[in-house]
């Protein structure tokens, strides 16, 4: 295991995220699951029971004690150039509906202003970032193999956002993997310290450094 710097060169620079944390261990975990346990990605889950949680065996160093363990992998570093609110739309298509819907005995009326078939104009927070960097302690070749499958990062990948043009992995003289949420009883807030970061029952009291290299701090400046 060696200190490494991993860089994602973005294609158009557009990435959808609200917090700019973008932990790479989470992205790598998703890729590891798609190779070793694709069945768990068949459906998006809003929660996972502790006995059903599959922990990815990442080529990264594990840090921390007991249940406070985490991967030696920083959050995204970089400088967003701009924030933009984009909108995506979801519309009920009436012309296709008249052709293909069988209303049976029901009234042929669809309410698109509320309820199940509501039309949406959804705002989406995006950032323009030329490149993002992460600092990890891990095995370079195995990390590279996992990265080679990853073409998009962030939200709304289905719409092409977060396209990564190129990944590079290089040895780095300094271990900066501490630029992340570190478990700390005196920390600022409860937050995820390892993937899946959204899974609330494994949140811990943690501290996030106010380091200006972190993209999330750059956003707050």
């Amino acid at each position: 295991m060696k200190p490494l710097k991993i860089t994602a060169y973005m294609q158009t620079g557009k990435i959808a995220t609200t917090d700019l944390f973008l932990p790479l261990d989470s992205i790598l975990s998703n890729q590891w699951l798609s190779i070793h346990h694709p069945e768990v990605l068949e459906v998006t889950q809003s929660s996972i029971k502790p006995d059903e949680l599959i922990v990815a065996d990442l080529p990264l160093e594990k840090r921390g004690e007991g249940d406070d363990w985490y991967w030696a992998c920083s959050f995204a570093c970089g400088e967003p150039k701009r924030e933009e609110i984009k909108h995506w739309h979801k519309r009920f298509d009436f012309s296709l509906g008249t052709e293909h819907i069988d209303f049976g005995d029901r009234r042929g009326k669809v309410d698109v202003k509320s309820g199940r078939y509501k039309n949406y104009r959804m705002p989406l927070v995006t950032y323009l970032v030329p490149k993002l960097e992460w600092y990890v302690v891990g095995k370079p070749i195995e990390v590279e193999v996992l990265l080679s499958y990853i073409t998009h990062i962030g939200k709304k990948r289905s719409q092409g956002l977060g396209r990564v043009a190129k990944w590079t992995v290089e040895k780095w003289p300094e271990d900066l993997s501490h630029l992340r949420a570190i478990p700390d009883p005196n920390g600022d807030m409860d937050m995820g310290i390892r993937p899946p970061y959204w899974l609330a029952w494994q949140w811990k009291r943690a501290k996030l450094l106010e380091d200006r290299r972190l993209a999330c701090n750059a956003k707050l400046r």
Partner: protein
Amino acid sequence: MNGKIETVFTLLSPLSHIGENIGPNSYLATQDMLDAEGNPISVFAYSGNALRGMWRDSGAAYMLGKLGGNATLQIPLEMFYLFFSGGSIGGDQSIDIDQARRIRDQIPHLSIFGGGVGNMLLPGKLSVGEGLPVCRELAHIIPDNVQGNREMSARQMTTEISYSRKDDAKDDLLRPFLQDGGLPQIEGQQMTLLPDPEQEKKKEKKEKPQQMRYTMEVFCRGSILWQETFFRDLCEIELGAFVAAIAKWAENPCIGGQNRIGMGRVKAEMMLQLFGEEKEPFITIGEKCLLADKAREAKARYDEFLEKYAGYLEENREGLNLAIGGKVEK
């Protein structure tokens, strides 16, 4: 299989893709991107979500056409919404990975485009990128082999087109077809001595022509858009479902809005690149839709699958409902 499909669209007619309306005028959707020096710029881009929605519609229409045989298959509203719009989350069906797998196996269209079934969200397997214009601002992104003018700014590739909407009810030649409007309006009628002001007001309001002149900013005919669609973990039948969606769309190859007045007509060249392999021709859409061997074989597998499924549906008309509802035999 993992890989991507690169598409080069050539606009055969102006493209309308509205981002903003000011009064009766509409303007093209632009997005912030980075230029070659890493500076933010605002450039027109055709939304990946729009392309994805369009291909999802074609894929669903193709599937229902095949399953219906000679007739158009009509389905319940909930299912229509799932196939054409991706459905919604709600209801009492709990997360069931086995059930999600069975739905994917039985409805490849849903597997590739994804959708909400009960309380489950089935992620799609496609990532449909934006259509980026070949232009000076994005020359550093577009592959060298893609033709187009890399010297010209995207701003110079737009133009404005104005249209008039005429109020035919005020056309004297057409008034005879209007109920209570048989007589042409003759100006200079003798005024009554004491006109009723209320009546005059009402008349004035009624007589005001409902017509307008509006202007649309469009992307010019002849411009070229480059686009990437990534896919992951597709089986051959699922690739066939995607090819079928494209083939159906190719019956009327248009993107963007205002297709009814001839806008957004395109020809397209699609190249397939499987992970770790070279690019190869996949689909050509011009006057006809030409499928290369790999595309044709995948579509044939999908057609075969749909024919079998159509046979099953003949015997069991509720089959599709049951498959979605989680009651299909295991």
